[in-house]
């Protein structure tokens, strides 16, 4: 078992859960520890219940895990909901003035803080939070200096008096714990590694900047809004035009307009906004102007549960916009991958002049992960494909595109080629004037839709566009089956479930059930033949996904006729925890069921 430590902070929205969370994350990552943070919250600005879980350890931590080691309830509600989750060895630090503990399991240490004795609560409204941080860090065996440093950074803008006040309160909590509470047996380790802590949304935004995105626009929608926030805050330094648009229909059309002028253009939304964008995707495909759209899935249908995660939009993505057209769909596997996938997708869609869809979800978008800065490459290869830009040759331009040269009027935007890819000149290039149309058209762009429809020409143009699919398939890496090669059970997942399935496999292997994993990243193209080859000797296959109907299972079956031995699904809005998968695998291997729907024990 990996050595990890999880701290959970809970309270009402507005009680200040975020700040201690940020400070813990900073202290852990600066000790060279990996971390994963997941915030269970609701669509409310004040009130409700929020539970932030930060799990850390010296080896990569990929998910929230199964165990809370330290619970910090900021109100009675949090105590009532979660104290019962604590197991022997765990501790709970709480404000003894306002919160009554309930029945705790044997071996759980209750740590009441006499808050009004330790701090002036009339002056400091969040004194209980700061005291608890100090106490908690002492119990974890972390010195006071890192906390003092983090508090200084946190409150620097508010002036030295506020800094001193908070450092003093934290110190009181730290010292009180030293005198009254038993520390955890293993102090938090330290390593020489260094991590940046970021959300999937920030990772995708930064990945966009690295990919050379020059235009980003969006309409705010949870859980995608973090991409907009990073882009807006860093627009000027990164040289990116960032616009907030009136609706998602405007977003996709504006993004395509910018792309059509020759820049890399991106937008992000969630399922509802994506639904509004679908007609625009068809335009991107028809006029062959590439655009990248991110869908951060949340629990649907309709408004659904805006602050909860799900993998429920796969079929919407597969079927978005009417008609057949080439598209690419990728589901990033973790937060570091959220960064990497964006330049990859841009190179693909620039080469093949079609829409590219990134299927993320709330778990990655709003979760946080410690990422090795080396995994954030701001100089990835940029391949803009057969693009002709209005450059006069003087620009120091890393576009990898050619400058326009005059033709004798013979330019055909949709020239028939073997690959289906036609050189793309953008407005402003002399000698290449043409009109692109969402109507069906001929090689020169002239419509064949209205006055003279023509089945032979229509067929030829349809086949030209669809020939690009072959190239896209060849350009995308094949899926791989992770070790061990031979296993009692093969777990198949896609996108964000990578980390939790990986940990479930580790646990199963330790418990004597050999397990391996096939995690699908590229959904379109799927490489069905390769998947069948990987699975042909599998003894028992189970598809794990975060939705009701088994959207990926149905998709895999439709593409390959493959039917797994069982399914594990979850659609309560919360992500899988490793034990959900482990227990489900055991009951399925015992022949009890073919479909497991684990119960989420944490009430959030």
């Amino acid at each position: 078992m990996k050595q990890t430590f999880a701290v959970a902070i809970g309270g009402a929205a507005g009680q200040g859960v975020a700040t201690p969370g940020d400070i813990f994350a900073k202290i852990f990552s600066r000790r060279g520890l990996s971390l994963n943070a997941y915030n269970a919250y609701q669509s409310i600005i004040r009130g409700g219940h929020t539970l932030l879980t930060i799990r850390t350890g010296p080896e990569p931590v990929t998910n929230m895990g199964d165990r809370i080691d330290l619970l910090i309830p900021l109100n009675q509600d949090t105590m009532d909901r979660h104290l019962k989750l604590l197991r022997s060895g765990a501790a709970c630090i709480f404000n003894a003035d306002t919160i009554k503990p309930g029945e705790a399991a044997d071996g759980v240490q209750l740590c009441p803080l006499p808050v009004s004795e330790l701090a002036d609560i009339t002056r400091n409204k969040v004194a209980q939070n700061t005291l608890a941080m100090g106490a908690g860090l002492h119990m974890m065996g972390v010195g006071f200096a890192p906390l003092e440093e983090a508090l200084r950074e946190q409150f620097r803008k508010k002036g030295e008096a506020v800094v001193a006040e908070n450092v003093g309160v934290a110190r009181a909590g730290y010292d009180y714990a030293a005198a009254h509470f038993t520390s955890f047996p293993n102090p938090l380790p330290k390593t020489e590694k260094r991590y940046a802590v970021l959300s999937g949304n920030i990772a995708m935004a930064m990945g966009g900047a690295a990919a050379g995105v020059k235009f980003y626009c969006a309409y705010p929608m949870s859980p995608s809004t973090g991409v907009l926030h990073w882009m807006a805050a860093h627009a000027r330094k990164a040289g990116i035009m960032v616009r907030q648009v009136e609706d998602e229909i405007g977003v996709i059309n504006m993004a395509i307009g910018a792309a059509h002028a020759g820049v890399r253009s991106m937008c992000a939304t969630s399922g509802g906004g994506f639904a509004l964008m679908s007609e625009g995707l068809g335009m991107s495909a028809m006029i062959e102007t590439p655009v990248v759209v991110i869908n951060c899935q949340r629990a649907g249908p309709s408004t659904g549960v805006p602050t909860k995660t799900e993998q429920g939009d796969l079929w919407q993505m597969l079927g978005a916009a009417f008609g057949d057209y080439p598209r690419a769909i990728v589901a990033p596997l973790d937060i570091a991958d959220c960064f990497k996938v964006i330049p990859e997708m841009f190179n693909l869609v620039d080469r093949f002049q079609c829409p590219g869809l990134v299927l993320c979800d709330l778990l990655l978008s709003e979760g946080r992960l410690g990422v090795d800065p080396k995994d954030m490459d701001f100089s990835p290869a940029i391949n803009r494909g057969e693009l002709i830009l209005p450059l006069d040759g003087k620009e120091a331009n890393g576009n990898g595109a050619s400058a326009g040269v005059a033709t004798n009027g013979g330019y055909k935007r949709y020239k028939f080629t073997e690959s289906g890819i036609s050189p793309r000149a953008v407005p402003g290039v002399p000698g290449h004037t043409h009109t692109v149309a969402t109507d069906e058209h001929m090689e020169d762009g002239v419509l064949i839709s209205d006055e003279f429809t023509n089945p032979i020409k229509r067929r030829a143009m349809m086949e030209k566009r669809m020939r690009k699919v072959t190239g896209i398939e060849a350009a995308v890496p094949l899926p791989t089956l992770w070790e061990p090669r031979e296993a009692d059970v093969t777990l198949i997942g896609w996108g964000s479930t990578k980390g939790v399935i990986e940990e479930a496999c580790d646990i199963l292997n330790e418990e004597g059930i050999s397990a391996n994993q096939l995690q699908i990243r590229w959904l379109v193209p799927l490489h069905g033949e390769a998947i069948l080859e990987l699975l042909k000797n599998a003894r028992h296959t189970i598809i794990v996904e975060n939705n009701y109907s088994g959207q990926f299972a149905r998709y895999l079956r439709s593409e390959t006729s493959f039917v797994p031995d069982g399914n594990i699904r979850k659609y309560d809005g919360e992500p899988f925890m490793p034990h959900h998968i482990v227990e489900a695998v055991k009951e399925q291997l015992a022949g009890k069921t073919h479909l497991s729907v684990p119960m989420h024990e944490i009430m959030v």
Partner: protein
Amino acid sequence: MATGVQRATQLTVADLKGKVDPDWCPGCGDFGVLAAIQKALVELQIPNHNVVAISGIGCSSNLPGFINTYGMHTLHGRALAVATGLKLANHELTVLVTGGDGDGFGIGGNHFVHTMRRNVDLLYIVMDNQIYGLTTGQTSPTSRIGMKTKSMPFGNIEAPVNPISLALAAGATFVARGFSGDQKHLTELIKQGIEHKGFSFLDVFSPCVTYNHDNTYQWYRPRVKKLEDDSAYDASDWPMAMEKSLLWGEEIPIGRFFERTDVPSLHAAEPVLNEGPLVRLDPRVPADAARGFIEELM
């Protein structure tokens, strides 16, 4: 709008002839609008590779196919959104958005309002025939009360939108109305609209000879009165423009209702474009900026 660089050889109307001839019904008002656009571009001598004509869907939205500039024939109602993105990515281009009243005021109404308040530097020409033509004759947002169409056979009971008042209220910085039956006047308005640095709205009465038997050339001709002929009219006076925009009936004003030049256009207000059009920039983030982005997360 930016008028681009003069080129050595003279641009002629023949240079602007599209690959195919218009497929509009004989007598359609849109012929006059196309001709006026071509004349205006020739008079302004804007190289055709620096012009982009962008439309939505509808009879009039076929226009980009009939003119030899760059063109985009986009989705129903979405031309202004597409045009905004394109202009922001390369603000050296002269952007003309062309379409109909259903496209612009019906399905595209939301983008119409927001593009005006943003003051995007483009000329938006609506060929307003008060009817849906390509779908064979239904009521449009500018159809008058009482007008009988296939979708309202007993007469329209919904009040029409007033595009001029709406544009003035939404903050358009250039608002004008033309008549397809008056080429010379229309060409002049198009030139003014192109040269205006900001959002220019030009609503053009462009009669549908097939489906609208109420608002014909004959109906318009005696009614339209040029604002330019009224020496007391001041196009910098917004309340005066708003009052004039409400006139309808025996006298219908055409011409430049309003213009202000003190509001920066969207691209001029955005410092990210200080280095030049985005399409010309190196897409790479400078190394020190990239380092800074990562360091703030540590």
